[in-house]
């Protein structure tokens, strides 16, 4: 049973994170110019598209009387057709994401949250519905949803490696998976195939720390996973480097291939790189995916 007071304290503590995260995410999102969102044809949407003369079959309720009163013909105000997509985010919150090889670098989880929030804000502005995979946050629109997402993103999992959760994923929706994909790849495969089955396509963004790419270790070392469940001892870390990099490259190739098979897009982002570039790529990828 969770004691109210600690819970409150933790909530306060966590909530303290939110404004900065939100602010940073807003800031990052503000840097991205919104592109063409409309479908360039009339349809359901918020934005004005055109007035056209009433045609037979138009419901009278559609007549725009303000425009029609200016002339003898009756007009129907058409709005631009806008389709609200459901974009589901999965942000890996497992222990492995809480790694930063250097004090100057953000944790991978931090970068993942930042990107997720930023893209959520952008998508929200674009009128899409954003939610988190799982049952907690089904896709919705609005500022409140952003706050809720930020709130939920602050949850941390104690598992070493996370696996995508496909529950609550609407069919033909979009999905964004942010993780380091260091753990077992089978759940990812399962998730992606089931997503493909449901007509969901999306983006797989692998976030890696530079140290994970470079493996700058030497000498006798015991490597431990962040959660401490896995350990590997070597007498000569420098000898492992090549083989580790090989395996990493394999893992990346596997992910890329998986994406290619399921129609997803794959990108590898390093926490030392600019978050903005990653956000741009992510946005384009989602937008492109929507267009496709």
């Amino acid at each position, binding site marked *: 049973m969770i004691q109210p007071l600690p819970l409150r304290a933790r909530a306060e503590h966590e909530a303290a994170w939110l404004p900065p995260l939100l602010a940073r995410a807003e800031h990052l999102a503000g840097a991205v110019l919104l592109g063409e969102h409309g479908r360039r044809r009339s349809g359901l949407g918020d934005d004005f598209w055109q007035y056209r003369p009433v045609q037979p079959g138009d419901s009278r309720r559609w007549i725009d009387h303000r425009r029609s009163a200016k002339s003898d013909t009756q007009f129907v105000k058409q709005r631009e057709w806008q389709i609200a997509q459901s974009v589901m985010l999965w942000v890996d919150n497992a222990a*492995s*994401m809480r*790694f930063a090889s250097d004090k100057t670098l953000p944790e*991978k989880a931090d970068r993942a949250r930042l990107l997720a929030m930023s893209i959520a804000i952008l998508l929200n502005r674009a009128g899409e519905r954003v939610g988190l995979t799982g049952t907690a946050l089904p896709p919705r629109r609005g500022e409140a949803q952003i706050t809720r997402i930020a709130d939920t993103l602050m949850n941390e999992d104690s598992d*070493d*490696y996370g696996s995508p959760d496909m529950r609550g994923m609407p069919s033909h929706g979009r999905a964004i998976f942010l993780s*380091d994909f*260091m*753990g*077992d790849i089978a759940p990812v495969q399962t998730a992606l195939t089931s997503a493909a089955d449901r007509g969901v396509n999306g983006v797989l963004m692998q976030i890696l*720390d530079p*140290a*994970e790419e470079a*493996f700058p*270790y*030497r*000498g*006798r*070392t*015991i*490597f*431990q*996973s*962040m959660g401490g469940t*896995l*350990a*590997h*001892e*070597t*007498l*000569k*870390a*420098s*000898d*492992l480097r090549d*083989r*580790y990099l090989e*395996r*990493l490259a394999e*893992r990346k190739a596997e992910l890329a291939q998986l994406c290619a098979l399921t129609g997803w897009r794959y990108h590898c982002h390093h926490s030392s790189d600019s978050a903005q570039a990653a956000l741009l790529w992510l946005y384009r990828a989602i937008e492109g995916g929507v267009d496709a």
Partner: protein
Amino acid sequence: MTIGPIGFAAPWLLVALALLPILWLILRAVPPAPVRRLFPGVALLIGLKDDDSVTDRTPWWLMLLRMLAVAAVIIGLAGPVLNPEDKNQARGDTPLLIVLDGSWASARDWTAQRDLLGDMLSEAGRESRPVAILRLTSPEALQFQSAEAWRSRLSGLGPDAWEPSPTSLDLAAALLGDDRFETRWFSDGLARDGRKVLLEALQDRGTVSVYESPRATIALTPATLVEGNLQITAIRVTAGGARDIQVAATGRDPSGVPRILAVLPLTFEAGQTEATEMLSLPPELRARLTQFQIVGQDHAGAVTLSDDTLKRREVALIAGREDREGLELLSPLHYLEQALIPTADLLGGGLTDILPANPDAIVLADVATLADGETAQMLEWIQRGGVLLRFAGPRLAASDVSRTEEDALMPVRLRAGGRSVGGAMSWGEPKELAPFSETSPFFGLSIPPDVTVSAQVMAQPDPTLADRVVAQLTDGTPLVTRKRIGQGQVVLFHVTANAEWSTLPLSGLFVQMLERLAVSAATTLPTAEDLAGTTWQPIKTVSADGSLRDAGNLPGVAGERLIDDPLGPELQPGLYEGPERSIARNVISAETTLTSVTWPADVPVTGLIRPAQQPLGGWLLALALIFLSVDVLASLALSGRLLPARAAMILAAVLLLPQEAQAQDDKIRAATSEVVLAHVITGDAQIDDTAQAGLFGLTQTMFFRTSVEPADPVGVNLETDELAVFPMIYWPITPDQPIPSDVAYAKLNSYLRAGGMILFDTRDANVSGFGAASPNGAKLQQLAAPLDIPPLEPMPDDHVLTRTFYLLQDFPGRHSGRNVWVEAAPPDAEQIEGMPFRNLNDGVTPVVIGGNDWMSAWAMDARGNPLFPVGRGFAGERQRELAYRFGVNLVMHVLTGNYKSDQVHVPALLNRLGQ
């Protein structure tokens, strides 16, 4: 075991060095401690196997560092010793005999010899070997004693100023006894007879090794007078390369202080053992020379004393008849001048003018009578050692001088008229001289046959006549008579000084006789026969290191031994004074040649500088520690754990800055911007604390009562602190405080001269008056002796200190002694009309000395409570108040100088203002 210059105390430990390669392998095999790293990518690593089971190798240089550290430890523990003492010499319980030449030639190296000797003695002490020391200059029977006993006598074994004579060497050889012993011979490097015999005797009794300085000995032969110049010759033992030396000629300056009057450079040409140079000095300077010394050579051989042989005597010539102008050859003084000019300085003039010049001799040629005053002066001059030489002549013969009564200035009574023999108007042949008797100063001079006497004054027969005759004619009539007066003498030649009455002035004998009478300077040393029967008193002796020493009560030396006997304890080199002259016996005579000793091939000869035995173990262990700490840093760096911050911290810890010096500087710097009172740190914590509290109390009092607002007082260390920033220094005297160094005294003196003031407080006015009676007073005298302190007087009633702020007549502290001493007023200080005080000295007294323990009366804690009781009740508080007032006055006096004293001018100023 010895490797090169390094020996090992525990050489078997070096075997461990063989383990180093094994250690190398082991160290390489043992993996370094694993580093634990959090790494998400570990999932990818699972299942990867290490290629080989060998761990990542420690870098070779780190291994090398560790190996070096271990090697340093091993070698360090093996007890390495640099320049170990040779252990191969005969050891064990063989007694050790140390033979010291102990001559003047050893004096230069005596310090080195003594150090080496001390080492040998302590070594022998460690080995419990009995030691005997044999000094060849004064051989005694061998006494084998413990080394410690000798060590305590070491400083008394210094060299003598003479050389061991052959007889003393023989004596030493005879004194050796029959036991066996090892001999170490400290040689002075000079060859001398008898060495060989002694060496053989020593070798019969054990091994002999010789310790000898390789430095060449240079000596100075006595200076001789050649044609008015001084010829100075230096000799050396071995004819090496060219060498320049300098000879300093020392004499007394006009005020009597010995000074170097001239320095003469000498050059030994390569291959020459002798260097000669002429030193030309004015006779006046030359007469003052007392010694010559080779600069930088501190031994008796490099010193020669000058005696009368270098001095030109001053002779005054006075003739009775000066009327026969133009007839040079008939002048009574002509022949005297000719005889004396080469060796003496001649004076002319009236007797009263000459006597104050104090000539060595005065010649009166045919002068009959002197004025009474002149006679008295003359007598006094003779009493002091003057030589009065009188010649007869017609005037003397005709006068009544010394006719019936013996004249004070005549050796004998004279008959009237004299006699003439062998002349044209007389019978008989001119008389010749009889051989000189043994008691005559002329004894030994050969008499040329052509010396004849044709006229003379005749001596009256007297009981004393026989004693006074020093030369006579063949018929027994006296020709030269002499009388001693005090230290001087009167000599009468019964003939004229020219050739009128005799041919004596024409002969060489005349010159020799003058020399014998010490009228002209004897340029050559007298022979032993000349001096027979006389006793010569040593005045100064030369010690082995070339310094002069008062002879003290050394016994006199018989004249016959003075010249030719070898120098020794009974005849020490130095200056001897005899009846008429002084003679210097120098270590080196004109005939001395220096030859270096050649030792047989089987005698090992070593220098005196034995490289000090230096244990290296500690250094090596320290080196190992350094290696290990470098290893720590390197290991940290290698494993990536040496963060810059950590490295900086370690460095900072290593290079910990000395904080104290900084604090000290701060203290002084603070004192530059404020008025700060200071007290001398005595080393007695209680006194220092009290002084600090006392000055704090005074500071507070000043702060509250006056416009002087001093900062907190400080204690000063006289040795290290700058004093100039303090207006006043309080110096409490304790009997056991250290005497400041010369540097500190120099600082104190410049402080006093620059207007600083020191308040000395003996703090004992309760038990003693001011003076050396108490321990503190004695200490004060000792402390203040080197200080530049003007004459002092007890503080007069009208001293400026009594009115610089408060009007005071008493200066009590915790005690109320009356005497406080300040700089004495100048004698011309006078009271000005209408003012109650004098116009005193224009400066601040540099010292105030008293014993009233002011600091205890002033002492105050931080809250202003007095720390020490003063007196009783209200009177005591009054006394404390007066103590504070004295302190205020004192500081005011220091800060304002004589400003209060200027009030003495007030009447004059008022007058000038027209009031």
